[in-house]
């Protein structure tokens, strides 16, 4: 694994540092803003009047108030900023893992060495997964450090951990989709468009599903729904929020690897 995995991470270390700093800044911004929101009952009333679809998209499940610690964190961070950040990083990384490096000429060069295609495919997706987890750990550490000072102490460390882990798991699904499209022979742009499009569709269905009952079976298949409906920040870890996306990730990674072994390089 060392031959492929570590160099893959090393090659992205500068980008990884930038993303870590960005996430730290976001957590800091969210944390220092909470004291100003906490006492604002007007905000609660405004948001309580919104449609269930919008409230659901904001991560405000039944009865959660925007000004409560969990409601605030969900609506300002866990239902939007963090998943979008991890999705962008994860989809970009998944498309880079095979398709991007193939277009850059590096893949053929690497495969002229004594490393097998399954090894290269699995190690390179693992590298992306490790980097997503690394960003999640940085985020979690910042949240845990900011929790008490920002007045968000009501949210337990366990639930914070579950929420960050579940968000990373959702990003992994779309990252694995981008990886699998590239491994199967798709160009980098195709991999990006497929996984990015799937993520957007999932998000839109989450909102529409509240209003349009006919769309609910489709919505229920979306990793976004697994995350938002399970609400790990309030309910803690669950199979739907963690086990299901990780299982789908493994299946996508395996399917991509099998396709990669059989095909011609471009």
């Amino acid at each position, binding site marked *: 694994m060392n031959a492929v995995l570590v160099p893959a991470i090393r090659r992205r270390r500068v980008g990884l540092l930038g993303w870590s700093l960005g996430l730290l800044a976001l957590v800091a911004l969210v944390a220092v803003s909470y004291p100003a929101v906490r006492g604002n009952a007007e905000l609660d009333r405004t948001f309580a009047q919104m449609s269930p679809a919008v409230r659901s998209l904001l991560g405000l499940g039944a009865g959660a108030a925007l000004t409560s610690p969990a409601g605030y964190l969900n609506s300002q961070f866990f239902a939007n900023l963090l998943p979008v950040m991890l999705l962008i990083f994860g989809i970009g990384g998944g498309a880079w893992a095979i398709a991007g490096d193939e277009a*850059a*000429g590096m893949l053929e*060069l690497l*495969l002229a060495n*004594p490393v*097998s295609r399954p090894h290269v495919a699995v190690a390179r997706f693992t590298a992306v997964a490790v980097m997503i987890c690394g960003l999640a750990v940085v985020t979690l550490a910042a949240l845990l450090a900011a929790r008490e000072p920002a007045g968000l102490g009501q949210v337990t460390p366990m639930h914070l951990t579950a929420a960050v882990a579940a968000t990373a798991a959702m990003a992994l699904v779309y990252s694995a989709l981008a990886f699998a499209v590239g491994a199967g022979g798709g160009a980098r742009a195709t991999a990006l468009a497929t996984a990015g499009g799937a993520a957007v569709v999932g998000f839109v269905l989450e909102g529409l599903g509240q209003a349009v009952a006919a769309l609910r079976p489709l919505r229920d298949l979306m990793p976004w729904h697994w995350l938002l409906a399970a609400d790990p920040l309030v309910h803690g870890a669950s199979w739907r929020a963690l086990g299901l996306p990780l299982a789908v990730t493994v299946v996508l990674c395996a399917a991509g690897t099998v396709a990669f072994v059989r095909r011609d390089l471009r």
Partner: protein
Amino acid sequence: MNAAPAIQVDRLTRRFGRLVAVDDVSFAVAPGQVVGFLGPNGAGKSTTVRTLMGFLHPTAGSCRVLGVWPGRDVGVRGRIGYLPGDFRIEAGMRPSDLFAWFARVRGVPVRWGNELAERLDLDVSRPFGTLSKGNRQKVGLVQAFLHRPEVVVLDEPSTGLDPGSQRELLGLVRAAAARGAAVLFSSHVLPEVERVADRVAVLRDGRLIAFSPVGDLLDHARHRLELSFTEPVSADVLQGVPGVVGVQADGRRLDVVVDGPVGPALAAATASGDLLRVAPIGDELEDLFFAEAER
């Protein structure tokens, strides 16, 4: 050739949809032998090489390196040095990092890469993107040779190299062959192959039209020359001269196409007036291939 071939291409065919890129091609390279792989762009050289390396699957036939197909046998790849036709790595990567990485993967001392780079006068600490075209190609050469491979497969290795670096490339190839490596050297330029190869395999439209000792090919090669005189000349002076298959006069210049040795044509030209200058036109390869294909 007593030794078992290190590279064996046997009735290889590769199609892309309806296009037949490589059509029933067979040739072999023995240890210590350099085979030039010649053909115009698009003749199927890269497809043959990439199938040989295991990046593409053969449609029919087979290709083997040291008895196995590298697409299936991962271990044999550590014994091959490969330079792709369009060598590039990501712009931010330093050559020293690439060499160290590949040396580790291939199980040889990391310093081998840097030693070779030093011989080629390559600065290994500058990011790939800041290097000149010739230096980028040198990075590709170093990574192909750094583990002292038993089999060397070079796809258009002299692309972008200045004449000095080209000589160094030919030196590397000769040294590899001298220590027993089998070398497949693809090119669309005859002169450089002529200087280093023992045999030449000529590919045209996916078919192998010649596989012969390099001397044989040169004996039969078709040359195109421009002869300049002090006075205007007529095309008649070269009509009927052995080997001359075409003459066109243009004032004080003759454009001559010769099959095989050029001696008789030059003798006739010298006899017919004051010959100022003899210059080859083009790299002759296209003409050469036509000559081979017609035979």
